């Protein structure tokens, strides 16, 4: 971890706790991610990975514990307020605007951060077109610009969702299973794209992933979760060598 010692960590989580009824989804989770770090979160189903992402992005309010994003403490902010702090997230099942075209989806993302989302001047939308097309090129979807999202493939939707998040210029990316349900080649194409953009823009990346190949290819460090808590943490080779981790995760139900 070669984060800048003077700056705040990009993400600092302390004692995060969340219960649904009697089910402990998060059990005093501590997590520190440095600026520019690429961190994978792995663990068996039900380990609390998605709940963690949901708390970090403001979708769920934790029972106890604190979350700091770049030194700013979150307290019960709504998702859209968290987004404005520079946190961009994607969902396990891609979340896009299904009745709009690919182009309009990306336009929405630009519109959201333009500072003029309430404007009535259509000219402001026209002014964004070049930037929208440039972003679509970055994620290699410009050829599908005029297609309605409902009609494009699952993998392309995930790609689009990632692109829309990028367009909001986040500093911290939270990706919940960015490659879930994709074919092998698509999967590696997308993760290569994610890595390239993350490095190029110096973003911090936290991603949940089930595909071990993808995890070891991408992550600089890995957090292993189990039963709502942090079970182990370390560099990829440390995690790979950890026999306890192999028992609960790698050896057991490595794939869901």
């Amino acid at each position, binding site marked *: 971890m070669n984060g800048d010692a003077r700056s705040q960590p990009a993400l600092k989580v302390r004692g995060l706790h969340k219960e649904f009824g009697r089910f402990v989804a998060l059990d005093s989770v501590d997590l520190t991610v440095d600026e520019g770090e690429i961190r994978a979160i792995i663990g068996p189903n039900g380990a609390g990975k998605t709940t963690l992402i949901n708390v970090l*992005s403001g*979708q769920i309010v934790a029972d106890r514990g604190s979350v700091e994003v770049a030194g700013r403490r979150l307290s019960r902010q*709504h*998702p*859209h*307020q968290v*987004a*404005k702090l520079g946190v*961009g*997230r994607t*969902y396990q099942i891609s*979340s*896009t*605007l*299904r*009745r*709009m075209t690919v*182009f*309009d989806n990306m*336009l*929405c*993302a630009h*519109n*959201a*951060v*333009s500072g*003029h*989302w*309430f*404007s*009535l*001047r*259509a000219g*402001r*939308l*026209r002014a964004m*077109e*070049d930037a929208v*097309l440039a972003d679509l*090129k970055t994620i*290699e*979807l*410009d*050829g*599908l*610009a005029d297609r309605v999202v409902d*009609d*494009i*493939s699952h*993998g*392309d939707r995930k790609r689009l*969702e990632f692109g*829309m*998040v990028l367009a*909001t210029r986040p500093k911290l990316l939270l990706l919940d299973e960015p490659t879930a349900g994709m074919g092998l080649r698509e999967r590696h194409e997308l993760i290569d794209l994610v890595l390239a953009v993350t490095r190029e823009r110096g973003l911090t990346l936290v991603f949940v992933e089930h595909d071990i190949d993808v995890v070891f290819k991408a992550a600089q460090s890995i957090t292993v979760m189990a039963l709502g808590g942090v079970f182990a943490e370390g560099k990829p080779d440390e995690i790979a060598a950890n026999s306890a981790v192999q028992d609960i995760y790698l050896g057991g139900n490595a794939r869901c």
Partner: protein
Amino acid sequence: MARGEGTRSNPETAPRRRDAYSIDWRVVAAVVLLQAILLAVSPPLLVFALIEVMIFALYASALNLLLSFSGMVSFGHAVYFGLGAYGLALSITHFDFPIALGIVAGPLVAAFFGLVYGILCVQLTAIYAAMLTLACAEVTYAVVFQWFDVTGGDSGISGHVPTMLGLAPYQFGLVVLCVVTVAILMLWRVVYSPLGLTIRAVGQNPARAAALGHGRKSVQLIAFVISAFFSGVAGTLFGIFHGNVFPDYVGVLFTVDGLLMVVLGGLYSFGAGIYGAIVYKLLDNLAAHYFQYWQLVVGVIIVVVVLVSPSGIAGLVRRVANRFGGRL
């Protein structure tokens, strides 16, 4: 569907002008001209029907902003329609406004109630929000119906404004045509502006919109107030058209009329309100004269639309337009 890099990324795609945002003035001019000619040459009975069609086209278009774009369902939209007419009447009878000022007051009263009820309703989502719009509407109806001293209760208010402003039917029709055209163009401006894009994003996927930084409640509230305002414009026109106002104007039947028009017209298209109003109101005005059970006909048509062609008349229009290579 072919998948691969070739289809995804196409370096030859030139930046295009996206005409969806701009108004096609030729179409507007043609429609307005046609309607003006129709008003001028039609017998009075048909002129009345056309005026009603135009007023309801605006009302349904305003409701359509909610239904098609903002992701909200209103079971009480007649309230804002009716309060336009009541705003006009009460500002004249109780506050001695001149008629011109009363006409301005109508839509503002509707928008104000849209704001108050909207603040409550956007706290909820989906069917719960819809039930709350119903509750707000029923409470309003009860107050209007029973506050005899102010609203005249069941017998309503009349005589506060000369019917059709004292104009001949076709003259008043031209006035309505102007107002409705401008209002619908303003709604178009709303839908195809940055604000409209925000409203549509929130309406289609509140979670994604939130992750992009849009708060659902405030955006939906804005849409609700705009919709209430333009419903109020339609209601004010309706009040002038008939020279009166009754509790029915805020009642459930006018709400249902609006909903049926939008679905008939075709959900998720801007023209839904216009197409729906034309078909529904012409059926209402003409078929009802010949056939006592015309609601049965409407019911059957709606069933067919929902089951066979959910994109409604707008979908049909689009298909025909595509066949002839044009764009609508």
